[in-house]
């Protein structure tokens, strides 16, 4: 009670990835960039290798991802996504661009033809970090058998048939597990969880 916490700033004052991204966007903060790199680069390399990239390709994708993060930091909107989510999308798009050599079709938020939200979502005031925390909490409550099919569908973009083979379970079981898992994950942001 007395010593450790006395007068110490609240735990939320410890800078995290969202703060590092803001520091990069606002003042080209290289120390923040280094922190972000230490936190995510080895994970991104591991992720890309799980997706089937060679070590060299994965290393290149890490480089390109962080160049992208440095350049685009000003586009990061903490209201929309957690830092990890945003960095994931940067890495994902680079992989499609560089390895598959395809375009990644995406919405244009400024498109006049875009249909906006009819009413603000019940949880519209949640930050991206809070949304991601809800999704992680939903993942944590899933049975292990559902988590493993979700992970396999993200790794290697594995088709349902390949997942069934790898886990040695019927295709219908893969589909029903995914359906249950996806519904639970969605409900984390629907505000009716």
């Amino acid at each position: 009670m007395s010593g450790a916490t006395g007068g110490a700033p609240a735990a939320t004052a410890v800078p995290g990835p969202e703060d590092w991204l803001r520091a990069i966007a606002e003042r080209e903060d290289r120390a923040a960039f280094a922190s972000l790199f230490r936190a995510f680069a080895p994970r991104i390399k591991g992720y890309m290798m799980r997706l089937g990239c060679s070590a060299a390709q994965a290393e290149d994708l890490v480089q390109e991802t962080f160049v992208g993060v440095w350049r685009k930091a000003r586009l990061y909107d903490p209201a929309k996504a957690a830092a990890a989510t945003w960095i994931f999308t940067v890495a994902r798009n680079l992989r499609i661009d560089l390895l598959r050599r395809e375009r990644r079709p995406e919405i244009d938020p400024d498109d006049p033809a875009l249909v906006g939200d009819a009413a603000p979502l019940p949880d519209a005031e949640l930050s991206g970090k809070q949304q991601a925390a809800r999704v992680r909490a939903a993942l944590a409550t899933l049975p292990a058998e559902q988590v493993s099919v979700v992970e396999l569908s993200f790794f290697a973009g594995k088709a349902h048939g390949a997942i069934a083979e790898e886990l040695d379970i019927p295709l219908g079981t893969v589909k029903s597990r995914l359906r249950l898992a996806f519904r639970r994950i969605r409900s984390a942001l629907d505000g009716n969880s």
Partner: protein
Amino acid sequence: MTIQHHLGDDLLASYAAGGTDEATGLLVATHLALCPACRTAVAAFEAVGGAIMAGCEPADLNAGAFAALEARLGRAEPGSSVPPASPAPAFAPAALSAAAPAIPQPLRSYLVGPLDRLRWQRVGPGVRRVPLRVGGGATARLLELAPGLKLPRHGHTASELTLVLSGGYSDESGRFARGDVEEATPEDVHRPITDPDGPCLCLVVTTGALRFTGLTARLLQPFIRL
């Protein structure tokens, strides 16, 4: 306008994970432009991707990886050269005819001009199409069906996704209007009828050619490669 037929969670999750081919991604993203509910779902699935990536077993980086990166930063100041999210469209949505609803991005950037100036190919009575240039294995095309058209009963050799852009049609699964998506698998056999009050414009993505059933259909088969 309320969307009744959404994309399945498996496709939305696959799009979020980066697993869809370009043609399928084009259809998913164009639906997202019209559907806030599916945008929220994709945001949730991207958060799953972020969590999975951040929880991945770390792999050792090459020695000097960060130094190599830092050397590139001087040439890439933050915000100095943000590339546009998508290539600038050749025309604005307002350039489309006033009668037709606007084609949202990203589909618009795949068209070389306004709808009435595309190279339409007549493929059968009341049916015309424009193939789109997309990478990857699947094919994408715009399909326009005349009002009140009864298409022959047909099945599919592979999966087919249809997104309605204007007008509408009905089949055994219900009524489909702007923003609605129909996913057809090889088992599905359907017989769509377009609304009587105007043409129906759709984006169609297939991973296999259509297979018609019935005599008329067999006669049409050589002509209607929808």
